[in-house]
């Protein structure tokens, strides 16, 4: 099929521009964080790591980072356990199970701000506002759909014939679980856990409602700073957050690659 040049020039230009539009804001934080100019977004000719120093030496940021980590780990564990068990259950159930499985994806459809308001009002009565536990519970709700989807996909790929094969080879049910089923599920579970971690790590809307001065997570701290005063320190933070997310993404790719080639 001969491609008329004009059409393709236009398409290519559009694509390139769109790609730049996508990439520029995502990546621009990196150079911004190293630039000497004290006005964010204005570049001068000096380069420095001073913003990182400020970041790392600030106790507010360190506390926020610690909080973020706690909450992310807690919600990851909780969401992964609940989601994996449920995905296993769903794989055994028929049509009704499928409907409920669809329902467990609901937290993704509901705008986070609504969940934020709802949980805020509920946590008021339960006195969970401004606690790490409250945050963990809230983030778990948000993370659960991802775990259910990832682990559910793993189960779907798990052919029932493996159970029969294992039984025919003499494996009692528990041995089949341990030696055949769990190893095959592991990639899905790990993927779900990584998704859960990143979801919690980046979560801001719900967290805004549920945190107080002591329990702020990194995104919340960032949010407060952005509204008051925009400094390159934020760019440094943004770069760090980008790094963490990227590491998680790379970890997932490595996982998928290793399970396929090996």
């Amino acid at each position, binding site marked *: 099929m001969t491609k008329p040049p004009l059409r393709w020039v236009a398409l290519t230009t559009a694509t390139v521009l769109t790609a730049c539009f*996508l990439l520029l804001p995502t990546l621009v*934080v990196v150079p911004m964080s190293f630039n000497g100019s004290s*006005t964010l977004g204005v570049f001068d000719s000096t380069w420095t790591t001073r913003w990182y120093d400020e970041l790392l030496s600030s106790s507010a940021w360190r506390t926020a980072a610690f909080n973020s980590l706690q909450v992310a780990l807690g919600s990851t564990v909780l969401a992964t356990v609940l989601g994996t068990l449920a995905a296993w259950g769903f794989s055994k159930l028929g049509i009704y*199970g499928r409907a409920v499985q669809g329902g*467990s994806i609901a*937290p993704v459809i509901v*705008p986070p*701000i*609504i969940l934020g308001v*709802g949980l805020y009002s509920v946590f008021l009565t339960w006195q969970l506002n401004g606690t790490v536990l409250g945050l963990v519970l809230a983030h778990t709700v948000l993370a659960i759909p991802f775990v259910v989807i990832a682990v559910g996909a793993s189960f779907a790929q798990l052919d029932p014939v493996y159970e029969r094969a294992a039984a025919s080879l003499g494996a009692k049910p528990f041995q089949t679980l341990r030696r055949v089923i769990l190893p095959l599920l592991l990639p899905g579970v790990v993927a779900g856990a990584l998704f859960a971690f990143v979801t919690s790590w980046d979560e801001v809307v719900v967290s805004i409602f549920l945190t107080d001065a002591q329990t702020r997570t990194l995104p919340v701290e960032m949010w407060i700073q952005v509204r008051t005063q925009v400094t390159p320190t934020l760019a440094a933070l943004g770069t760090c957050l980008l790094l963490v997310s990227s590491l998680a993404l790379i970890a997932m790719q490595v996982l998928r690659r290793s399970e396929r080639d090996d």
Partner: protein
Amino acid sequence: MTVGTAPAPRRRGRHGFGGGGWVLVLPLIAFLAVFFLYPLVQMARESMSGGFSTYESIMTSPVYRKVFWNTLTIAGATTAICLVLAYPYAYVMNRVSPRVRLALMAFVLLPFWASLLVRSFAWIALLQDSGLVNQALQGLGLTDEPLSLIRTTPGVLIGMVHIMLPYMVLPLYTAMARVDDRLLLAASSLGATPLRRFVRVFLPLTLPGLGAGCLLVFTISLGFYITPALLGAPSQAMLGEVIAEQVEQFGLSTASALGIVLLTGTLLVLVVVALFAKRIGRSSR
């Protein structure tokens, strides 16, 4: 490895292994009931704490009417712009070599992994008077004075389109990838010009993906908070911002009522589109 389809009994799930399925699902259901459904219920109750009066005042107040209107128009505009940008991008992604496709896909996926907050404030830095965008515009000689882009409607649109674009590209790409090239060849052999072929064959075939993408972008935009709060004009506040404001000012019942309105609106859009899609699916047979 070819794995056969085992004749699993359809009555039960495929893995009749170990105990019952509901026991395993129960913890999840209980958890979501307590920490997801109950807050929504509570929100509804809170909104009704003054009877219907809260809803009345919201619906009749011109201020809130404006907010609803803004939310709808900005969400709609975002969807439209995303569509215009995403369609060619997805189209090109389908036509290029696998290597280039991988790169294009990476560009689309990368933003997902940078938190939305980071990207939003990156836009603040870029769109401010002394930011890169204005520098570029002045450098190219398009304007003499910096354009005020932050805290304006164009500003918020730029930010939201940026965030939403991947959500539009992915469904479009998937739908386009499914289009059988032979159909296009057949159309050509029947005498269709490239334009005709595009409008009468290609476009309709990508409609499901288009619909999915628009739905996704629109519904997410309705409930958006962060980006409009950072980049939007105060006079053009969206529903999310207003809700947050109310919570800050301890107007919990108003905030709840607004939240219910938002939730209902979002669900309504989903239901309407779902029904519509079924209609189209049926009529095309």
